[in-house]
């Protein structure tokens, strides 16, 4: 308990990008973007369409390689140089924009293969679901409110439930950094609320980056907000601060 308290006070930098550039042909989707994230922070990234938000998450999880610059995870791990699966094993979990779960596996099996474990072939071949694993999975199912659905084929879940299942799959890996791309897209108001609470719970013991368009949602749940525009850093701060920023207003209202 004491240890946790201590950890909470000394907020360390989990993630840092310095002059990151990602170029697609002639287009700089990310242009000298610098970004910093502390532990246990619920950090939202907002910005107009095509600002480079998704691309930034892609770089963090290894899907896209930076053209120049790099991103440091936990001060020493250079994410730009690793494969996707290696990044996951270092402790970065990503939830995609469209729910991507495994539709023909049961909810339980989805979580079983997502679980933090050795993911080499030899270990997986002999792996058995232990009592501890089951308990862990059931805790997670309770957290996302799918306890009753554990044996159901995941493809038959409602849209919102799929989104939560995917969040749970990310959490099962026990990541230190969670990346979520528009997690509430397509959700009902009630589901949105539930998701927001879930995000808060998650951020209690890990850093979270959320890309989101819904300003009411951001206002309600963000610790800190970073605004991106045309691949660059525009400003950051609390939602109130950001909203009063001249340049942000320009970008969002389209004045030049």
């Amino acid at each position, binding site marked *: 308990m004491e240890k946790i308290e201590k950890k909470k006070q000394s907020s360390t930098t989990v993630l840092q990008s310095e002059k990151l550039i990602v170029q697609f042909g002639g287009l700089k989707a990310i242009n000298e973007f610098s970004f910093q994230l502390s532990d246990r922070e619920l950090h939202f990234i907002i910005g107009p369409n095509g600002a480079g938000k998704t691309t930034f998450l892609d770089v963090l*999880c290894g*899907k896209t390689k930076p053209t120049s610059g790099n991103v440091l995870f936990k001060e020493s791990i250079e994410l730009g140089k690793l*494969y*996707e*699966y290696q990044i*996951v*094993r270092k402790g970065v*979990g*990503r939830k*995609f924009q469209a729910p*991507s*779960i*495994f*539709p*023909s*596996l*049961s909810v339980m*099996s989805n979580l*079983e*293969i*997502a679980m933090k474990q050795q*993911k*080499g*072939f030899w270990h*997986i*071949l*002999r*792996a058995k*679901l232990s009592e501890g694993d089951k308990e862990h999975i059931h805790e997670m199912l309770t957290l996302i409110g799918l306890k009753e659905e554990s*044996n*159901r*084929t995941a493809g*038959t879940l409602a849209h919102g439930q799929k989104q939560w299942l995917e969040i749970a*799959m990310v959490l099962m*890996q026990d990541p230190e950094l969670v990346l979520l791309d528009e997690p509430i897209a397509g959700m009902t108001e009630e589901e949105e609320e539930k998701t927001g609470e879930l995000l808060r719970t998650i951020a209690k013991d890990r850093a979270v980056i959320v890309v989101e368009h819904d300003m009411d949602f951001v206002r309600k749940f963000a610790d800190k907000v970073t605004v991106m525009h045309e691949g660059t850093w525009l400003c950051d701060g609390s939602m109130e601060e950001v909203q009063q920023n001249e340049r942000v207003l320009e970008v969002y209202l389209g004045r030049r």
Partner: protein
Amino acid sequence: MSYLYSKKTLVILGFVILLIMPFVLAPFNLNLLGRFLAYAILALGIGVLWGYAGILSLGHGIFFGFGAYAMAMYLTLQSGGMPDFMGWNGITELPWFWAIFSNPIVAIVLAIAVPMLFAGILGFFTFRNRITGVYFTILTQALVIVVTTLIISQQQYTGGTNGITGFDTIFGYSLNSVTTQQMIYWTTVIFLGLVFLICYKLVNSRFGKVLIAIRDGENRTRFLGYNTSIYQVIVYSFSAGVAGLAGMLFVLQVGIITPSMMGIVPSIEMVLWVAIGGRGTLIGPVIGALLTNGASTWFSQTYPDAWLFFIGLVFVLVVVFMPKGIMGIISTIQARRRAKKYGKDRKEEAKLYNSSSI
């Protein structure tokens, strides 16, 4: 899960029936069934590869063929020394790559290990470079052409289009005797059971779930921390080894192997058995191989010209109307029946139903 239980019982029952067939069938028909069972073993390997891991190989003929050639080479050497075609082509000394097959253990090990190794290396370079889907499938087809062309062109070493035949003993027993053929039949049935069991364990383990995950969302699986290409390499290599085993058992019962038995058309037919029987199950490929080949034999004897059209038509119909094959139809009927029995809404029932992997 009484449903799963009954399926298991059926599989065991089927196995027992296969075991007593030598007392029921005439030698000629037993020999036919034995060949089909060798095909069924091959189909199991393709079934795991395609049905579970989602990798479509249209080139399993070469692995099957390698197993068959390895066994045929051993049989030739032990029943009569150097093959005739070498003499006709002016080769007087047995080349080293033939000589090693004179040892039965070496021949059997190589028949399985070489396809596994070859598939492993090929898979490593393709899957690691993320060549999957259609591109991979086309590559496997191209490979069949390369290999069969090579065999045909190296007539002095391979027997060319005529292949290898003319061997008539194994371990000193006549290959044509009824008892030997019965023994070979039983060996085939036992290997079928063994391969079935291994596949069953495989697809129902966490490994099997990861294969399904890769099939349904390779990228997603990567972002769960899996090095998916290693899994693909392993399952491809496994199914190649199974094909090699099937090839060995096949040649023992047919007495000949030629390039045309492992070429493009057979390679595609192998996949059809799985499609017809049912993808994503293990019973499906076995049933598909048995039924298709049974029908093929009957049909091609009765209407030799129409057979190819017929199989083509069946394939189109299966793809369009029953994408999950025979097993898919069976499970739909069963779901309907259960729904009636329990008076539940059928849709609701189907929703909750989690297909068992057998």
